[in-house]
């Protein structure tokens, strides 16, 4: 157990994220069937399979890792989630450029850069019923935990919990961004698929860090 997250740790996270998405593929698609076009599960699965294939050759740094992940998602997913998740990772990379093994604060800053990127691309605000409703609370919780002296395990646990709560909180919302917004009032009563995949992103980060043993 270490408070410094290595590139290998981050690779393990991305692999774990792929596995979780594959496992929840049908669930994500079912959520997207209710208020979208029934492809979020296959979109994310296709993209992350491509990412994991690229990771056959180990990246030299966290910055390189996230560049690869981001570019691969952008070029293999399509849809709304491709550019958004792609941007997320493309922005995380540079934020970790100078660190060799990220501590809780550095990783938190990188996650925030990623989220800011998603907001810049997608223009979603909190409460619009998008992945931002899971990602935003997650980075806020991470920052709070770090400010309270938490290590990466604790920070990631707080973030994962906040993401899951954010995901659940999308259920009653009326969507204002993305495909679900076309449904108007009918979008209420369903969890947002992107928020659900984002919750998996944070949960797999927590679990893969905890599993380092």
């Amino acid at each position, binding site marked *: 157990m270490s408070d410094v997250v290595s590139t290998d740790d981050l690779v393990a996270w991305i692999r774990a994220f792929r596995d979780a998405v594959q496992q929840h593929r049908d669930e994500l698609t079912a959520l997207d069937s209710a208020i979208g076009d029934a492809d979020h599960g*296959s979109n994310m699965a296709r993209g992350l399979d491509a990412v994991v294939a690229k990771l056959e050759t180990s990246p030299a740094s966290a910055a390189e890792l996230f560049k690869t992940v981001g570019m691969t998602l952008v070029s293999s997913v399509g*849809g709304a989630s*491709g*550019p958004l998740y792609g941007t997320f990772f493309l922005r995380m990379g540079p934020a970790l450029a100078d660190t060799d093994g990220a501590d809780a604060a550095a990783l938190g800053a990188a996650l925030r850069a990623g989220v800011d990127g998603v907001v810049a*691309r997608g223009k979603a605000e909190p409460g619009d019923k998008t992945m931002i409703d899971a990602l935003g609370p997650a980075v806020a919780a991470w920052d709070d935990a770090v400010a309270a002296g938490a290590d990466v395990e604790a920070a990631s646990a707080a973030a994962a919990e906040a993401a899951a709560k954010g995901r659940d909180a999308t259920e009653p919302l009326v969507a204002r*961004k993305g495909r679900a917004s076309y449904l108007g009032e009918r979008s209420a009563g369903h969890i947002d698929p992107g928020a659900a995949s984002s919750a998996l992103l944070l949960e797999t980060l927590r679990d893969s860090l905890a599993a380092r043993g």
Partner: protein
Amino acid sequence: MKKFVNNPDNVLAEALRGIHAAHPDLRIDTENRVILRGEPTPAGKVALVSGGGSGHEPMHGGFVGRGMLDAAAAGEVFTSPTPDQVLAATQAVDSGAGVLHIVKNYTGDVLNFEMAAELAAAEGVRVESVVVADDVAVTDSTWTAGRRGTGTTVILEKIVGALAEEGADLDAVAALARRVSEAGRSMGVALTSCTVPAVGHPTFELPDDEMEVGVGIHGEPGRSRVKVATAHEIAKMMVDPIVHDFGDPVGSAIVLLSGLGGTPLIEQYLLYGEIAPLLAEAGIDVQRVLVGDYITSLDMAGASLTVVKADDEMLRLWDAPVVTPGLRWGA
């Protein structure tokens, strides 16, 4: 799921093989999943690139050819293409005169085309974009993703393609594209859901006596669910919101009634027989009309109506020759 498929995850690549076999005059960039004209863009001609998720055939690949698109990027089923695909299409057809991106207003399409345009600009290609957002079923607001882009896209690709063929420059082409885009309104209804091959069952369940009003073209549920109505009542559900949304008198118009993929032509004609008098009553003077499958949603039973207020220039360009798999006349 009953479909002509082999592997549900490989539908796009295999459909492209068939498009290639059926249309030897088109070129297919298999790697990038781009459909291109057989001949390179003539020097000085502005190129038109569109694209989007697959499952809407003949749109967009079926509108590649003389007088219409230069290339179309085909995404996975209902998933917008990636920036790489659009970039590949853009670079392949730019003759130096610049490229117009014709984008339907879906977050995915907008973001991916945006990134592609940035990349193309970085490579020195001049790109203008027009975003079609014509679906009156969606309440518009600056706070939302806005309206979906549907049938106006087809009419725009035809009209603007004709202008580009005449040698107009990128600014003129883009200006006309925006004008057509703003002149169009659409409204769709579905009698059944569609089935995404990779999913294998219908996107939504619809009882035998209900229909969805205000649907898009991606199997997303509509704005409301009502009891199945007569063709006459359905025609009203389509015409009224369009007329209401125009507000001002429309006058001359180009009209498209498109089946959504699972509705046969006889029903489309029957429905159009109900729509035509309603349009006339509303003071819409239908100058040109298409009835058939032009913008579909896999195997969904349903139809969408598009009305584009058309001035004389648009009508002239509409009548200009076009040679594509999906639209052909004058040559």
